[in-house]
């Protein structure tokens, strides 16, 4: 069974500073990895995803993430944050055997708060 761990429940960062949100996963098979963002009172929006190929994935709003198979991690980074990045960020994993019946398993989320 797959699982996702987001160790940091809250991350405060000053505006224009860099940020890294950590995500570790466990799975017995190959995986697809995702980061979703949830702005206040809104649904989830896909930031980026790793399916295969290059381990460095670039997403929307200047975010990127790196898939590290040996460390089973998929940390999210942004070199300079903006007030509008304040949101809840969810890491998710889907087992990538393409056998069908896949489901997303989410981490518990990290609340990113940008301090002016």
């Amino acid at each position, binding site marked *: 069974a797959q699982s996702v761990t987001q160790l940091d429940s809250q991350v405060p960062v000053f505006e224009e500073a860099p940020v890294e949100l950590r995500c570790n996963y466990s799975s017995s098979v190959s995986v*697809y990895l995702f980061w979703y963002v949830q702005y206040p009172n*809104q*649904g989830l929006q*896909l930031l980026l*995803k790793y399916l295969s190929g290059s381990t460095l994935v670039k997403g929307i709003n200047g975010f990127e993430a790196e898939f590290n198979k040996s460390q089973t991690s998929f940390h999210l980074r942004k070199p300079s944050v903006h007030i509008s990045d304040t949101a809840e960020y969810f890491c998710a994993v*889907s087992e990538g055997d393409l056998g069908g*019946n896949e489901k997303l398993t*989410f981490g518990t*989320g990290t609340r990113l708060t940008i301090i002016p």
Partner: protein
Amino acid sequence: DTAVSQTPKYLVTQMGNDKSIKCEQNLGHDTMYWYKQDSKKFLKIMFSYNNKELIINETVPNRFSPKSPDKAHLNLHINSLELGDSAVYFCASSQDDTNTEAFFGQGTRLTVV
């Protein structure tokens, strides 16, 4: 055009009532899902339908009954509502059941009083 739309956005109801939440997607996707987000923001899948057929049914009380009249719609009916059912319910869809990307609705905040 909203890709995945849910109605209502807010729902306040008394314990014991029966209520429904509707979901529609206009993306032409084959697979639709219901997720529950609790007060601690934890997201967990409840159901998944592929081409109107139930393919995932997590451990959910049988008071919850999904219905998919066609592959663009997945409604959630809840009988005998309990206080613990209070949560935000998200509908989502993906192109197929390999779930390489899921698109989410705006959520329905259900409050049971």
